[in-house]
């Protein structure tokens, strides 16, 4: 079996094509390619441009036959819906923020707020009102302004832990609703038309 057919086999496995059906298609394809080669024809003569893209070819054939085991969702999977997506962004930002606070705090027994400069002038952008214990990094203009406001490592640690747990829960939920990973139909999902 040549490399092209092996690549097709891998794609059919990934798409959940039943093994007997995949074996049958592989055998037919192998026989055709071998006959063409014996006659001096190239794989392109048999497969057209598909000879350069075995995965796409394999998927197109399996879908056309209606033998893919991967269900097609009628609605977008969880990670494509707006609320979980927004939640992921927020939790990710919290992880980065809390991580920065912990890293900087571990060095100087304080935590730093790193804010993105939103103006291009020479002044700095401050997140907190002027007061003691606050350090502002002055110009020349850089991308960040850093303010020291006090010890808050436990809070940062708690925020980090909660955000990580939240992301983990979201990841599990996305994994459970990922179309390519589910092998069994459930209400609201449909298989491709039929098994040959």
């Amino acid at each position: 079996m040549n490399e092209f057919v092996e690549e097709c086999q891998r794609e059919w496995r990934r798409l959940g094509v039943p093994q007997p059906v995949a074996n049958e298609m592989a055998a037919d394809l192998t026989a055709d390619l071998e006959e063409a080669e014996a006659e001096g024809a190239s794989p392109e003569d048999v497969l057209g441009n598909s000879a350069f893209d075995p995965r796409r070819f394999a998927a197109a054939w399996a879908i056309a036959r209606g033998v893919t085991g991967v269900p097609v969702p009628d609605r977008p999977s969880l990670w494509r819906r707006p609320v979980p997506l927004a939640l992921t962004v927020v939790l990710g930002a919290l992880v980065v923020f809390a991580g920065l606070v912990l890293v900087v705090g571990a060095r100087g027994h304080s935590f730093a707020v790193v804010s993105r400069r939103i103006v291009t002038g020479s002044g700095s952008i401050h997140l907190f009102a002027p007061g003691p214990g606050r350090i502002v990094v002055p110009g020349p203009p850089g991308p960040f302004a850093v303010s020291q406001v006090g010890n808050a490592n436990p809070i940062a640690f708690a925020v980090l832990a909660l955000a990580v747990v939240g992301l983990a829960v979201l990841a599990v939920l996305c994994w459970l609703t990922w179309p390519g990973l589910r092998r069994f139909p459930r209400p609201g999902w449909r298989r491709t038309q039929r098994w040959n």
Partner: protein
Amino acid sequence: MLHGVLDLCLLAVMGEGPAYGYEMTKRLRERGLSIVGEGSIYPLLGRLERDGLVETHRAASNGGPPRKYYNLSAEGEQALTAGVSEWQATRDGVDGALGLVKAEVRP
């Protein structure tokens, strides 16, 4: 190639007798369709089979391994007849429109 026309050509070459995949490619090539195109004929054969326009059976080929032969079903024969009529009407219309153009043949 126009959408659906290659399907019609496949049905037509199958009308000459059962054939396996590569055999149909060769029959098409003998009739001047040497470029199978982007998708190759296999997905099309899969779709025709799924739609019930062709029937399949396995049989030994000349000295080679058993092959999957495709032949027209009753529905396929009807589709071929209807498709040929439709194609001829389309071709006549296109010929009528393009016939007004005086093409210059340059050496």
